[in-house]
């Protein structure tokens, strides 16, 4: 497949370290190493030219990652900073003229740094999962859908299947969270994996909210028994538009694993799962994986600076479809 057709969409500010597109691809939030959040807006939905609509200094430390809040909760982003804290900023105003980016809430967990944040939408509330360098996962819930200020800590746990053991000395370099992207009635769930020195924490686990007991349960561990200690660099849950199974990609040092996860748990509460492919092609770690809207194509990128596209053929065999290398 041909990937040579590309065009430049916008120029980023000097020192930009991370970017994130909003739900409709009309806004880009970009964070710089000096702690400035720049927002680029498309001039028209039908054209692909963008201009910067706002630049706000949001923190003294640099911005490591930007994550958009789901659109049902306004135009807002969470910024993760180099110094380990994160904050939520929102574009709002009492009238049309006073609209500007404002700080809603700042989070700091002391000595443990936040590594990743992701938002999950349930029919009634917004949930936020944050993971920390000490191997802990926190789940927050927004109490008022119109105010991004009041977050209630709903749960705190480590990324281990057996809940008895805790690892106090864990040191995690990076973490990867991916919510089950489907809206609708079923229970909320997400997948989470660590890149740490504690093997038990690393493997990616599917966490599901048990509404009856108000707790989060690990329902699947996406790693072969001998590979459970592998550091996880990235995980991505594919949108399910009607498949009888969920599709999840997990990147470790061995490559990109594609998993099929059954929809219904077996007798001991675990979801049936099968690794259908282990893809290699990237040199070095895979930092980011993104499923397209149908879950048919997986785009990945990593330290080799190459974007790769993966698809399954009609026989269910996953293979690389195309690559993109930027040459300037």
């Amino acid at each position, binding site marked *: 497949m041909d990937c040579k057709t*590309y*065009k430049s*969409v*916008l*120029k*980023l500010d*000097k020192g*930009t*370290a991370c*970017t994130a*597109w909003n739900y*409709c*691809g*009309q806004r880009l939030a970009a964070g710089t190493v000096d702690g400035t959040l720049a927002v680029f807006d498309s001039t028209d*939905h*039908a054209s*692909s030219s963008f201009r910067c609509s706002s630049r706000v200094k949001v923190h003294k430390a640099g911005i*490591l990652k930007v994550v958009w809040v789901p659109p*049902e909760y*306004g*135009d807002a982003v969470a910024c993760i900073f180099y*110094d380990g804290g994160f904050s939520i900023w929102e*574009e*709002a*105003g009492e*009238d*049309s003229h*006073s*609209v500007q980016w404002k700080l809603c809430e700042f989070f700091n967990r002391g000595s*443990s*740094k936040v590594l990743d944040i992701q938002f999950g939408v349930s029919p*009634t509330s917004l949930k936020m999962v944050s993971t920390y360098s000490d191997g802990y996962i926190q789940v927050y819930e927004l109490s008022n*859908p*119109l105010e991004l200020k009041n977050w209630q800590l709903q749960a705190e746990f480590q990324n281990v299947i057996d809940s008895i053991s805790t690892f106090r000395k864990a*040191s995690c*370099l*990076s973490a990867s969270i991916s919510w089950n992207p489907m809206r609708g009635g079923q229970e909320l769930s997400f997948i989470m994996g660590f890149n740490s*020195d504690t093997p038990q924490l690393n493997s990616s686990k599917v966490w599901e909210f048990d509404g009856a007991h108000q707790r989060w349960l690990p329902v699947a561990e996406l790693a072969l028994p001998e590979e459970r200690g592998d550091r996880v660099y990235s995980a991505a849950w594919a949108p*399910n*538009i*009607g*498949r*009888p199974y969920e599709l999840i990609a997990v990147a470790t040092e061995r490559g990109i694993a594609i998993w099929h996860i059954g929809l219904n748990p077996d007798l001991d509460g675990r979801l049936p799962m099968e690794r*259908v492919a282990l893809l290699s092609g990237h040199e*070095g770690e895979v930092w980011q994986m993104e499923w397209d*809207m*149908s879950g*048919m194509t997986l*785009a990945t*990128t990593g*330290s*080799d*600076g190459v*974007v790769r*596209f993966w698809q399954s053929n009609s*026989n*269910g065999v996953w293979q690389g*479809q195309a690559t*993109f290398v*930027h040459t300037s």
Partner: protein
Amino acid sequence: MPETAPAGGEVVPMSSGHGQPLAPRLSICWSRGNSLRVSLFSLASFEDEAGGEVVEVKLCDGGDGEISNAQWRTIAYDSVSPFAMLQNRRNSMSSFSNINPSPYHLECWEYMMDYSKDINVLLGNKKSSVDSLIEDPDIFLKKTEEPTCLKAAWELMEMFYVNKLSQAWLPERIVDWLADYDRLFAALHGTVHMKVMNFQNVHNDIEVYEDDLRYWDVIESALAVGWLEIAVKMLRRHGSYQLDQLSNRETENGLVEAVALLISKMPRMRSELEPGRLGECYKAKPDFIKAWDKWRGQITKLDSCAFWIQCHHGQTREGLKKLLQILLGNTNSLLAATTNWLELCVSHLIYIRPFTVGLESMYNLAQNCIQLKPMSSPHKLMNIIIGILGENTEVVLAECSKEFGPWMVAHAIELLTVGSNEAESLLHEERYNLGEISLEELHRLAYAQVLSSHALTWQIAPVYLSSCMKHGMGLLEILLYKQPVQLKELLLKNLEICRLYDLDDCSSNIMKMAGVYHWKHGRKGSGIYWLQQARDEFRLNKIAQQLFASVGKSISDESFKQWEGLIGLLDSESNAAGGFEFLHKYRDFKRSLQQIGDGKNDIAAQKAIDSLMLLMRNTSTPQRFWLPLLNDSLKLLNWQHRPLLSVSNTNLLLNKLQELSSARLHPGFVKPDLPAEALNSVRLALATNLGRAILEE
């Protein structure tokens, strides 16, 4: 704790210590459909002015640029109607066929043919390069617009898969097809078309045609692929036709004319022959065989006649003899006259095996021809032909997909399944690995995704998605969620699509998104409107609670106006919750309080006190507002002119105050945000009022 993670801002955990230091860091995000946006950071060279950029990468553009993007959009829009029409007819047909299956196939062919023709028309006008050659004697081949491979491929599939009624005349149809599209093969290999064109470009420089070898060569080639009109037209340029030479070269001219006449009398088995086309048309096989034998007899007779000896012009004699060999189907002559296997194959169909029927025999013929004229890199159309002749649906599909992109596959699949059980089961079988969808659905989904990639075409994607029984609606919902809600026209279009496909949840979520967007961006009216449309009681109640927050607080005129306006907006019969009722009463109370002004208007004051009593009597008034309300009314309770409250009303209020005092002892009591002496002032005022009221009564 995390000792290994260094403090400070100098290390980026995601990339620290990994990879080559100079490799640009990337970030990726899917945009519309199948375009991916890649952010390229240039952190490594921080001294540079540039801070990196974002590029958009299209995963698949479909085709090789033969057709421009704007043309693809035109094709995309125009094919919506035929496609939807076909789906509708098929749906109504399949419900009908349960009762009476016999008319199914005939009618099925009919509407498939309609569909195929509709698509064929929108791919461009058919401009045959063979017809209307009569006008200009110097032009053998008209310079027409370049045909497209896309149309050529579509016509091939139509010919082999759909147009079953003319299967008997298939060889002649292939001849016609090649006449239309032979030039497309010029890029890779020589073609007869190219030969003719080349000759046409130079023929004015040639003084004596028949002396030039190229002249005979071109006629041979044109004849070999069945372009009788060109062959005859060129023959008539033979020098012996010139008046001054006619007498000297009578026999020679006679031979030329005899060959030309034989060519133009060639029997052809086909349904019709357009005016200006040469040959004699036979619809039925027995008639054709009779004519064919007779015609061949005439050629043989001419070939062996004595006149050839009298023909003194060597080249003419040789040339005409070669033409006769072609007409007689001499394999070596045909091989020499044609430039690629497809042309050779066509020449065989014309002169050696005009009765070829069935794909298998054609496939064998094609394989023979390929062996005789092998090719290093076959043309895409040739691959499709081989796929069709070999009855290999997968190959055809793969070639269509590779060469023409998702539009072609999504639309051509309809053709492939006509009357073929193998293809039907291949394309309609649900595969677990694909998520329990069929190949047909997969390709429709892929095409819909391509449509979603562009702002101008996303809105036709629902038509294709609605034909996907299993995954279509799921993808449609995602597509709709990805449309921006801030643009009114787009939002309304989005909601209309939801309405048409009964996606009520999706619709209400989108309205929620729009409502929050407007609410947060200072357009409270629009915000509330969309939240009401979404029936989002949860958020509306939160808004109402925000309004409660200003109960009992002194607010400026301007913000009271805003507050009052918001309550007005929340006024809706669907929101008959108690909270709203209270807010409305409170608004009336607040309004009349404001109307009192300087404190001398008795009527307004009485109105205000009535509103207060309404509020205090009403059970929907939250207890926590009792004191703020009374505190607000201090001015009324201490009214100068006369006591405004009756004895019974004053007692009621005093009771409420008592109730409040005892409630204070309960845990969970919300202490109003009022000065500490408020309670005492109210109690005092009420007591005073009670005294005055008793006196008055």
